[in-house]
């Protein structure tokens, strides 16, 4: 555990005087290792360590806690701050249905998260409509329709020959006509290197003018999380991040990297396969998890 590793690194420090540069060198190496093991991007880890070092060096060594506890608190506070404020929840359209788009890499959990978002809105008294705009993956439409049935939320779907942006547009028209409070568009997984598919998601954004564009990211994503998110953000500005599969033991450092580099706020944490409500993001809890 990090506190134990820091105890060993800081055992030479006693409860007198100020924290010195040399004291924290080894401790910062331990923190860097913990962050990298948690999949925090190495550049984000580097600038984070620099910020912590600045906050720690010169501080009075407190007699009430061990030096390790003192450093951990500085690290934890800095990390919590970097992760951003608690989420304000989902945006709401000023008039007409709120449009929410979920995008991301293959298999990250978009379809399942789309259903969870629908459930959240329904429980809050809304009347959401799901849109099955993934016509590429075999049985993706069936998957969303089944989930829609499970939570009693209607799903707009069309034939596999329809273009995703038209499905989204038609779903929005239907939502307006039938007075749905929101339309949640599920999209096909895509990699940011695929020019055509990135263009497609940009066109979908232009056509539907979403109030929320949520990037669905797997909590276990490694170093590439930053490059992927940055490219998606460039194409169609992301308004929030959903971190999925948090019910496992992945530390979730990708969330810090994405937040630090793109500024996109973490909005929700998905904690399981069943269509249950999403967990609202708490920065201090995620900070503890990332530190391990």
């Amino acid at each position, binding site marked *: 555990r990090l506190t134990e590793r820091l105890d060993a690194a800081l055992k030479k420090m006693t409860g007198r005087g100020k924290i010195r540069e040399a004291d924290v060198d080894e401790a910062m190496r331990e923190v860097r290792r913990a962050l*990298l093991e*948690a*999949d925090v991007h190495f550049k984000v880890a580097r600038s984070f360590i620099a910020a912590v070092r600045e906050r720690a060096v010169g501080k009075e060594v407190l007699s009430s806690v061990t030096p390790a506890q003192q450093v951990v608190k500085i690290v934890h506070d800095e990390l919590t701050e970097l992760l951003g404020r608690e989420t304000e929840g989902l945006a709401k359209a000023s008039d007409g249905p709120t449009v929410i788009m979920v995008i991301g890499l*293959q298999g990250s959990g978009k379809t399942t998260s789309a259903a969870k978002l629908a459930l959240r809105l329904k429980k809050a008294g809304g009347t959401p409509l799901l849109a099955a705009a993934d016509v590429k993956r075999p*049985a993706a439409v069936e998957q969303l329709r089944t989930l829609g049935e499970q939570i009693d939320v209607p799903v707009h779907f069309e034939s596999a020959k329809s273009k995703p942006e038209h499905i989204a547009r038609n779903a929005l028209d239907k939502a307006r006509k039938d007075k749905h409070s929101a339309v949640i568009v599920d999209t096909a997984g895509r990699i940011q*290197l695929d020019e055509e598919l990135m263009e497609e998601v940009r066109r979908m954004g232009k056509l539907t003018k979403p109030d929320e564009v949520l990037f669905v990211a797997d909590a*276990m994503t490694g*170093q590439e999380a930053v490059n992927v998110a940055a490219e998606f953000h460039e194409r169609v500005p992301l308004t929030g991040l959903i971190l999925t599969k948090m019910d496992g033991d992945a530390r979730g450092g*990708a969330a810090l990297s994405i937040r630090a580099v793109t500024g996109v706020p973490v909005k929700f944490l998905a904690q399981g396969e069943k269509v249950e409500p999403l967990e609202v993001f708490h920065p201090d809890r995620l900070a503890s998890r990332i530190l391990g």
Partner: protein
Amino acid sequence: VFTRSSIGDDDWEELEDLLITGDVGPEFALDIVTRLRQQVKDEGIKTPDAMLAAMQTLLIEALDAGSGELAGGHGPTIVLVVGVNGSGKTTSIAKLAHSLKRAGLTSLLAAADTFRAGAIDQLKIWGDRLDQRVVAHQPGADPAAVVFDALGAATAAGVDYLIIDTAGRLQTNRNLMAELEKVVRVLNRADAGAPHEVLLVLDGLTGQNALSQARLFGEAVGVTGIILAKLDSSSKGGVVFPITEELAVPIKFVGTGESIDDLAVFDPTEFVEALLR
């Protein structure tokens, strides 16, 4: 780093960073760079080209975990495919069946993911496209029952391969891992050698958690090979280094896209070259 005329401390750090961006993890990156530095010193390696060659050799050797060949020659050869949610199992099974078909070998596919919405439909669509039979029950059925049924069907049909698709599960979920162990017991009882191959599908974009996946799936069902999917993405899949180092499981295949022929036999040389680019 490999194009400089002399190597300084900053360059060694840069090399370590390069490996870390490839997801090899901080521990492996430090170890291998330390070993390379020692080798450069001992052998008096002077040129960047020679240093790059030495690094490549070290990395390729680190991936040596024995035969990468798919098991075969049993009647039928039983392949169990496992992994965490969304890693690429179902798609990889379709690709595997396709490449076996191209080699003149028949497969029967078992839709043992009876939990996830649309999972059975998804495999059935692939089966139709490949014209390979799929054995399935209704959603919610016991996966072990589907497997038992598929075993009988595969033996009766005399197919070369029975490939079993299972539900995604996080390696830390005790109940779901127990469900998988039960499937293995059903296979053991039918044929002492079965499953002949247990393939763990890892998402190439996964970071250090992949090591925990390989460990725990290995402990539960004995993984005999890895499919590293989604390597067409921008990630390098470097987590296979700590996995190979600790568990010595061979990487057998890589997934390079979403189409049926986007499956390749793992090539350590190509993999290492891509990592160092």
